[in-house]
């Protein structure tokens, strides 16, 4: 019952770990099927970290362990020095969490939802009011404060959920696919909001299936089948990508797409407008280009700089697609 309860962990605040998040070899499996395997993850304050991966990669499981909702089978982790194995009140005070799915109370108004979380986090009246009005003004939800959550649009709802998670000014903000089901304009707004809080020193960890979003993070971790394939700054990851990307313009795309995909060395194909991007293994790249030029369906083929999405698609097929470099 004591809010100022101290964590017995020796690494608690001011101890040897300065990381906001520190996961060491964390694992979790659901009835024998591993969801997350040996995850190591460190996050500093003022850092925006994106956990990207396809559906079922283990993003939500990792996030649930991090927030103390799910106990790891093996490994240990700390948030601000508080163990995630035995989630204490101090751990929860340190984290603001916005789940992927609808998690607020639809029959409560914006005001009431905010007040509810303000009370649960033990904010004094004056502080609650100040923070609420600040959040309402930067999210521009102020005019709708008496509207019920179930009557909000997707974007407004997400902004409210974000405000509820931010009200107690957590040191770590965790967002599970925050832009899911949000229109591009609202998505833009959400990102602006996030940067604002990151600039103030908050650590933000978010998951996303969208590569363009991942590219906006300071650091990303690529998660696939429970394992972290690569980690680093998006631009560095692109630099360290060893394979080649081509942009092809072809005729009769539907007939020849499978044929192209079956060529040796082709790791991934993705559409770009009317063209196709092909990620090809570096040793086979020259051969692929020759093969493509020799066919009549190829109108044009040119090498292009890989995007973050190319890197990710390449990594899914070839875990060694990122060049190991000391100190990177």
């Amino acid at each position: 019952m004591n809010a100022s309860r101290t964590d017995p962990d020796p690494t608690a605040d001011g101890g040897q770990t300065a990381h906001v998040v520190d996961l060491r070899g964390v694992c979790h499996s659901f009835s024998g099927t591993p969801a997350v395997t040996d995850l190591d993850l460190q996050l500093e304050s003022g850092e925006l970290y994106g956990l990207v991966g396809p559906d079922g990669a283990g993003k939500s499981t990792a996030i649930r362990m991090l927030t103390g909702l799910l106990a790891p089978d093996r490994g240990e982790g700390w948030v601000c020095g508080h163990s995630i194995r035995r989630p204490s009140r101090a751990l929860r005070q340190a984290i603001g969490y916005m789940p992927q799915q609808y998690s607020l109370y639809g029959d409560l108004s914006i005001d009431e939802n905010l007040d509810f979380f303000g009370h649960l986090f033990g904010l004094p009246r004056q502080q609650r009011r100040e923070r609420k009005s600040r959040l309402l003004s930067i999210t521009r939800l102020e005019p709708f404060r008496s509207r019920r959550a179930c009557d909000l649009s997707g974007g407004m709802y997400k902004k409210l959920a974000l405000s509820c998670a931010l009200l107690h000014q957590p040191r770590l903000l965790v967002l599970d696919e925050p832009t899911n089901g949000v229109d591009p304009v609202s998505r833009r707004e959400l990102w602006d909001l996030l940067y604002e809080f990151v600039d103030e020193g908050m650590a933000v960890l978010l998951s996303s299936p969208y590569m363009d979003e991942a590219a906006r993070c300071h650091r990303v971790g690529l998660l696939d089948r429970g394992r972290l394939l690569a980690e680093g700054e998006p631009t560095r990851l692109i630099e360290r990508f060893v394979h080649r990307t081509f942009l092809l313009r072809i005729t009769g795309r539907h007939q020849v797409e499978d044929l192209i995909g079956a060529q040796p060395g082709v790791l991934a194909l993705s559409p770009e407008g009317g063209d196709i991007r092909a990620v090809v293994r570096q040793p086979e790249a020259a051969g692929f280009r020759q093969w493509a030029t020799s066919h009549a369906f190829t109108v044009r083929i040119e090498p292009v700089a890989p995007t973050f999405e190319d890197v990710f698609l390449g990594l899914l097929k070839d875990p060694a697609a990122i060049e190991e470099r000391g100190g990177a």
Partner: protein
Amino acid sequence: MKGFLTRVTAITVKEAAHILRDPRVMIFALVLPVLLLLLFGYAISFDVDHIPLVVVDQDQTNASRNLVESFTSGDLFEIKARRSTVDQVEPLFRSGLARAALVIPEEFTRRLAGGREPSVQLLLDGSDNNTATVALGYAGVVALEVSRRQMPTSLSREGAPISAQIRTFFNPGLRSSAFIVPGLTAVILTMIATMLTALTVSREIEQGSMEQLFTTPVSRLEIVVGKVCPYFLLGLVAVLLVLTAGVAMFSVPVAGSLWLLFGVSALFLLAMFIQGLFISVATRRQALASQLAFITTMLPALLLSGFVFPIDNMPWPLQFLARALPPSYFIHAIRAVLLRGNGVEAILRDSLAILLFFGVFLLLTVRRFRRALN
């Protein structure tokens, strides 16, 4: 402690808002109990009256007419038909038009005057044994009464039969409503209270808000306590409504203290709310929770509570089950206070049993809650 209160209050306020904004909950909690009481109160009655009677008066004298009059002066029998022979009675029984027949033979008056034992015949439809038993008992009383009136005074002086002066305590009219309404109150409260809270946790788990709640500093105990509070207040209003309706509509005597009645009802409500929460936490699905809440309350409250069937007459496994569940204690207590006018000491054992159930289930609920997301 201050943090505990703040968080419990926050949950309570939120939960109260859910209740107040959902008319279905209000109807379920406040209208349905009274409706059920009226419905069942009028439908369930062990009182037997207006038994359809066929009269076969083959004597057709003043004496025989007086006898018929004695039978029908009360509310118990109502003459539906008159026939001249016994053979004509059976078809009436078969068609259900009559359930009893009074046959007065030709020589009734002559035997009466001659001092020889006059006899009349009562035919009963035994397919409804409750009605038949009551009719039988009543007929015996009427016959005794009539014969005493008819007997020569000289005889009655010396060898009059012993007459039992019967007086029934607590429910002089032996009206079943005085017996049924308290029991019905218990059944209704059991069902409504459990069903109300059975949905609260499973709904939040299904809707996803529980996940968010679990990442806040609120503890499981605080959630449970916070959720019970507003339902408790609502439940008290429901108790008040049901008791008022019971007393007003069925003229149930209130012999004891209403405060005591209210107190034991409040305790019982708590036990039922925690039972509902346990179901909610254990099932985690609204559909399953509501079904389970219905089954685990309706059947025990109706059959294993002593409401209809005395617990002492049950086979021992059922007795054990009945005594493990709060409705049996509540029905005992509510009858004790309402009808017998007993004080605290008479219902102390019942109250402690209900309190024990509450404590055990509170513990189970909080323990079970802990693993909710794993």
